[in-house]
């Protein structure tokens, strides 16, 4: 296994935030087809061990590239930047204001036990998520603005947390 290879190289993909999901999925399937431990279940132990290491690595690479936040963090890391550095918490005031509004909306939906409000909120959050993803692609791939990209990654992380909270409220209301 060549550990100097990037996840993009592993899947034969260009190193960019914009992602051809079909190509990633198809390369992932092809690789797992080759290295998965199920292919070596009746082989000697050495081959089984190598297969587990490879399959683990392929899964890790796939999860990193597939996930919008992880892919951003990973691309910035390849540029030597730690987007999630605890000392770097810069965030546009407008985004923070929006955050607070969303949080209040979640609380309202919880208090009002309203599935419709929750559905609408969930749609809003997902739309905002997609907008930030598009910005991130622009910042990394075209503008090479890595400081701006780091902030966008942190915003995406916030969005993921909000979306998870909405999921929790769904669970509360359903049970």
């Amino acid at each position, binding site marked *: 296994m060549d550990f100097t290879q990037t996840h993009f190289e592993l899947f*034969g993909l260009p190193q960019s935030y914009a992602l051809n999901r079909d190509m990633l999925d198809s*390369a992932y*399937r*092809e690789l*797992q087809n080759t290295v998965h431990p199920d292919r070596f279940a*009746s082989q000697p*132990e050495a081959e089984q061990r190598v297969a587990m290491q490879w399959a683990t690595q392929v899964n890790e690479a796939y999860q990193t590239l597939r996930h919008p936040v992880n892919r951003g963090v990973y691309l910035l890391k390849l540029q030597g930047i730690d987007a999630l550095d605890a000392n770097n918490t810069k965030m546009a005031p407008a985004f923070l204001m929006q955050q607070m509004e969303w949080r209040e909306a979640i609380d309202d939906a919880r208090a009002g036990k309203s599935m419709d409000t929750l559905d609408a909120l969930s749609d809003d959050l997902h739309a905002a998520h997609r907008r930030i993803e598009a910005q991130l692609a622009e910042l990394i791939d075209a503008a090479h603005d890595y400081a701006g990209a780091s902030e966008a990654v942190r915003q995406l992380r916030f969005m993921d947390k909000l979306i998870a909270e909405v*999921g929790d409220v769904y669970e509360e209301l359903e049970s």
Partner: protein
Amino acid sequence: MALLQISEPGMSTAPHQHRLAVGIDLGTTNSLVATVRSGLSVVLDDEAGHSLLPSVVRYHADCGVDVGYAALSAQNLDPHNTIVSVKRFMGRGLADIEDIASLPYRFVDAPGMVQLRTVAGVKSPVEVSAEILKVLRQRAEAALGGELLGAVITVPAYFDDAQRQATKDAAQLAGLNVLRLLNEPTAAAIAYGLDNASEGVYAVYDLGGGTFDISILKLSKGVFEVLSTNGDSALGGDDFDQRVFCWMLEQGRFSPLSAGDARLLLTKARDAKEALTEHTEVRVTAVLSTGEMMDATLTQAEFNAMTASLVSKTLTPTRKALRDAGLTASEVKGVVMVGGSTRTPCVRQAVADFFKQTPLTNLDPDKVVALGAAMQADVLAGNRAGDDWLLLDVIPLSLGLETMGGLTEKVIPRNTTIPTARAQDFTTFKDGQTAMSVHVLQGERELASDCRSLARFELRGIPPMVAGAARIRVTFQVDADGLLSVSAREQSSGVEASVQVKPSYGLGDEEITRMLKDAFTHAKDDMYARALNEQIVDAQGLIAATRAAMAEDSALLNETETAAIETGIAALEKLMAGPDHQAIKRGIEALNAATTEFAQRRMDRNVRRAMAGQKLETFG
């Protein structure tokens, strides 16, 4: 995908001969064994023509054991020594078992897993399960006419690490080589998906005797990718029986029940439930050992009302699984029903209403898991060539560590595709600290005390440093069986201390050895001869595989390396002629070590080839 390809008798899949492999569904209520014969997956029957083996074990004072129908018919007669639904106790402590008061067993609280006191001594659920597996192994060996290469054993998808480990231990104790632990809904998906050449997103709703699983899978070009799974490992048909049982108690107003009468009523409750799948009402009668009687009519409407909360309890995990997969019910192309309890009409109706479509029931819900497991066993044994499918499964529950303040820190989130590994770095918080304790947890809750404790261990020998200087990396590795191993290592000083743990709910190697010894003293097998034979078979397999690899890929080795492997083979062959199974085992390990680099090169080359083909396909 060409499936169910029929091979002519006598036309073995060259270059290997057909290897005997089976799939085993170790169920709460019934167990089954299936195999692929002439390209078709079939359930193997016993001599009397039964496919189902009731998962019931009766212990006798003379150490004799009845398994299956013989034990089932004795359950009212001898309730303390006749264990039913033992699967519910696998990997579980006494505190985990909710309805302990209504069960006739004499439980013994033991560290890790609860045990049962019987007339033949104290038995762990692992030993009881092994009795069931032994009968299935013998059934398969008799039907197939030879020793098994191995078995795929199914487990509920929502089983945690402790329950999985317990199942694997039981198989080992029954003398089975476990090719893979396979999630029950995934096994069912194989049987269904391949039969129907399906593509798209499917939900598998699996309500068994004691467990409930829901899995969401994406089927695409021969790959079964589990997107999410959820469930309840203590919810099943037994709970429906329990509701009817409570109704019977209300009707009968009996004096306190003996264990035998309680069993009798539970059996009647199950019969009533089963009758209601075909009829709108059923007459329930019983005569107890005290002479007390009941005679009442239960309607399907009453039954539906008393079990409605159980049915809705299955829909909460179903919603969670869909949400985790990022899908809505309308995006699911088909819903596969698995498990005997999905015969209950109100369950089918609830699932149909939820997904707004008629669920698929064309395969026998009792057999579909075993059939799928057999197909996977056939693949893992290497009996198929080229057109194999691939399973990508997930862990059902997050894995993590306890951190300061009794909180859980997730290391691997639920629904992560396996195999997987994650590392987390920790440091010391006191000057000169030389030890650190690691507490491994499984579950979704924030408080460590609300999650299942899988293991605790201490990393010792950390060189004394100022607080915060040590770098301790804790690595979680989950293998393709969904089993976890954890290691910890101090890295900053170059001094290494590392430890591998087995979850505390699993059995230690010594305990397995003890049980194996116990088992063999009651059998005619000579343990030593068996161990020797097993090692020789393993060694032969390894040498054959190594020779085949060398013949195929001699270009990947230089002369020195070839010579080193040849030396390893020669050394092992010499040991095989001797009587020492331990020495053969060491020889196998040595040859494995000598071929690791070769195995890596072969894999690297295979990956390059696969990706070259991939590029042509995508860009061409």
